[in-house]
C-alpha cells in the first residue's frame, strides 16, 4: 500500500512549487554541521556538471539537528538549484538508539526522501551520507546515470578501502548476501545508493518504516528488497570512502549486533527466495577503476586473540546452545592455538555464521544476547584474517575474500539443511 505524504505544510508547498523534477539527491542528516556543506556543494556541482539538461533537486531530510546542520545547508546552496529542507520523524527510540552509521532514524529519512522523489515524479534518485569527506561531483554522476539513462533500478556503491577496513562487510555481509541471493554486490550496506523512480515507488509500498528497518537496517533492506524484487542491479565505482572522524572501535559489539541482526532479519523475510538460489553471478560495475592510496591502520592482534580466548573460557556455555559439537571443537582448537599459528578456517567461520543465523531464526535464546555473543568470535576471525593478509596486496586480499565467498556458497547446503 502506498504511503501517504507526511511532510510539513511548508515542505508540501515547496514540492508543489518545484513541479516535475528528473533527479532527486537525498541527504539524510543528524548533527552533521562539520561535513554537510561539502556534501551539498558536491551534489550541486554533480547535478550542474553532469546533468545540465535535467531538472534536479536536493532534499535534505534532517532528524532535528542541534548543531546548525540546516544552516550549513542553506549557506552551501546555489541559486541555480532547488534545495528542499524537510524533517523526518525521529521517534524517541530512534533518538536514544545510536545506529552504527551515526545517524538516528536513517530509515525514516530515506522514506521522506522517497516520498518527495515520488511526489516530484523523479526518474532517478540518489542518497548519499552527510558525513562524507571524500564525496566528489563524480559520485552523483556514477550513482544517478545508470538509473536515469541505462535502465538500471538499483545502483550500489563500490569503494576502495584499506585491506583491514570493512571487515564486517567482508567477512559476513557481502559473502552472506552473495551466497543467499546469488548477486555479487560488493558493498551491500555501503550507505550511498542510486535508485530508479520505479524502485522508489516500490519501496514505498512496504510497511516497514516503524520497524527496526527505520532505525538501523535501511541499508541492507534497500539492497535485499531490490535483489529479491527482481530489479536490475549495477554497481558504481566511487573510489575511496572517507567518513567524518569518529571512534571506529566504539561499541563494536552493538554495531555488529545491529548489522548482523538486520541481515538475519532479511534472511528470515526472504527465505522462500534464497533457498532456491545456488551459486552467484557478477553485477556490472560502472566507472573507471583506479587505485588509491590508503592510510596505514593500527591493529592490535594480540588484544583480539586474547579477547577471543577469554571469551572462549567464559562464553562456551552460551555458544554451545547455538553451535553444534564439531564447531565447538573447532573453536576450542583455535583458542588453544599459539598466536603465530592462529588461523580461523573458512569452513569453520562460515558454519559459525550460518549456525548463528539458524539460532536467530529459532530464537534459541534472546536475540540481543545471541548477536552480542558473536563479537569475540568475529574478533578472532579479524585477527586471523589480518595475520593472513599482512603482506598481501589488494589483488591477493580480494582473492582471499573470493575463497571465503566460495566457501559460503558451498556451505549453503548446510544452512538450508539446518534452516528447514
Amino acid at each position, binding site marked *: 500500500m502506498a504511503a501517504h505524504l507526511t511532510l510539513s505544510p511548508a515542505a508540501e508547498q515547496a514540492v508543489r512549487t518545484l513541479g516535475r523534477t528528473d533527479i532527486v539527491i537525498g541527504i539524510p542528516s543528524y548533527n552533521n554541521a562539520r561535513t554537510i556543506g561539502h556534501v551539498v556543494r558536491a551534489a550541486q556541482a554533480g547535478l550542474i556538471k553532469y546533468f545540465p539538461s535535467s531538472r534536479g533537486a536536493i532534499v535534505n531530510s534532517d532528524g532535528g539537528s542541534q548543531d546548525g546542520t540546516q544552516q550549513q545547508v542553506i549557506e552551501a546552496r546555489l541559486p541555480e538549484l532547488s534545495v528542499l529542507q524537510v524533517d523526518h520523524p525521529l521517534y524517541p527510540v530512534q533518538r536514544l538508539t545510536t545506529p552504527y552509521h551515526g545517524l538516528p532514524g536513517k530509515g525514516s529519512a530515506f522514506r521522506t526522501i522517497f516520498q518527495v522523489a515520488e511526489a516530484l515524479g523523479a526518474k532517478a534518485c540518489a542518497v548519499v551520507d552527510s558525513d562524507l569527506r571524500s564525496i566528489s561531483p563524480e559520485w552523483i554522476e556514477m550513482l544517478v546515470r545508470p538509473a536515469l539513462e541505462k535502465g538500471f533500478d538499483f545502483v550500489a556503491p563500490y569503494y576502495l578501502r584499506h585491506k583491514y577496513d570493512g571487515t564486517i562487510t567482508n567477512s559476513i555481509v557481502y559473502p552472506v548476501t552473495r551466497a543467499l541471493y546469488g548477486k555479487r554486490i560488493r558493498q551491500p550496506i555501503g550507505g550511498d545508493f542510486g535508485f530508479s523512480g520505479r524502485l522508489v515507488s516500490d519501496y514505498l509500498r512496504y510497511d516497514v518504516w516503524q520497524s527496526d528497518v527505520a532505525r538501523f537496517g535501511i541499508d541492507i533492506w534497500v539492497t535485499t528488497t531490490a535483489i529479491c524484487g527482481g530489479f536490475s542491479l549495477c554497481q558504481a565505482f566511487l573510489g575511496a570512502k572517507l567518513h567524518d572522524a569518529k571512534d*571506529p572501535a566504539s561499541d563494536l559489539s552493538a554495531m555488529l549486533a545491529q548489522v548482523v541482526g538486520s541481515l538475519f532479519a532479511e534472511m528470515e523475510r526472504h527465505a522462500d527466495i534464497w533457498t532456491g538460489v545456488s551459486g552467484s553471478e557478477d553485477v556490472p560495475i560502472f566507472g573507471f577503476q583506479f587505485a588509491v592510496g590508503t592510510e596505514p591502520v593500527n591493529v592490535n592482534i594480540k588484544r583480539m586473540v586474547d579477547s577471543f580466548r577469554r571469551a572462549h573460557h*567464559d562464553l562456551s556455555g552460551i555458544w554451545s546452545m547455538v553451535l553444534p559439537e564439531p564447531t565447538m571443537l573447532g573453536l576450542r582448537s583455535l583458542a588453544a592455538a599459539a598466536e603465530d599459528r592462529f588461523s580461523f578456517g573458512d569452513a569453520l567461520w562460515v558454519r559459525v555464521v550460518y549456525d548463528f543465523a539458524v539460532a536467530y531464526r529459532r530464537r534459541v535464546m*534472546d536475540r540481543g544476547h545471541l548477536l552480542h555473543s558473536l*563479537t*569475540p568470535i568475529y574478533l578472532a576471525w579479524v585477527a586471523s584474517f589480518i595475520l593472513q593478509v599482512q603482506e598481501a596486496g589488494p589483488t591477493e586480499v580480494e582473492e582471499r575474500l573470493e575463497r571465503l565467498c566460495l566457501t559460503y556458497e558451498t556451505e549453503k547446503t548446510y544452512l538450508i539443511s539446518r534452516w528447514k
Partner: protein
Amino acid sequence: MWEQFRKIVSQSAGRIADNIAAFLPGVLAFLAISACAIVAAGIVHWLLLRLLRRIGFDRRADLAGFSSLAEWSPSRSPALLVARVVAWGVLLVGLLLGIASLNSPLTSRLTYGLLDYVPHLVAAVLILLVGHWAARFLAHSVLISAVNMHVHSARLLSLGVKWLVLVLAAAMALEHLGIGGQIVLLAFGILFGGIVLTLALAVGLGSKEAVSRSLERQFREAREQEEIHHL
C-alpha cells in the same frame, strides 16, 4: 431395673445408629469425591502429558532457560513433572472437598485454611519461576557485556548477579508464604548490605592498588585500540 437398663442401651444404640446414619452419607460422599478426584487426576495427567509432549515442552523449557528443571524432573522430563504436579493438585483439591463433605468443624477449618493458602502458594511458585528466568537473563546480559568490554572477572560478576536475583526472589516468595516474616527481609538486607560493604571496603582499602592497576590497564588498552573501520 432390667427394663430401664434395656431402654438406656437401646437409646445409646439408637443414638450411635443415628450418628452413624448421619455420618455415613458424608463418608460415602468423601469416598465418592475421592474416587472422582483420583480418576480426574489420572485423566488430567494423561491429557496434559500428551499435550505437553506434542508441543515439545521439554525442548521449549530447555530453550527458555529452565534447563535445570530437567534435573529435578522424573525421567528428566519437565513435561512429566508438570503433569504430575497438576495431577497431584487436582487430587489434593478433590481430597479437601471430600474432607469438607464430612461436615465436622475440625475438617472444615482444616480445608478452608488450606484452600486459603493455595493462592499464596501459587504466587510464591510464580515469583520463583520469574526470579529464575530473570536471574538467568540478567546473568547472560552481564556475562556477554563484560566479556565484550574485556572485563577479566566476567564470570564472577555474572554469577554474583544471578545469585543476587535468586536470593531476592526466594526472599519475596518466603514473605508471600508468610514463612519467617520480617526475619527473611532482615536477613536479606543484612546479606545484601554486607556484600556491598565488603566490596566497598575491598575496593577502598585492600584492593585499591589492584583496582587502580586494572583501571589503568583498561584505559591503556582503550588508548591503544585498533583503528579498523569494521563496517
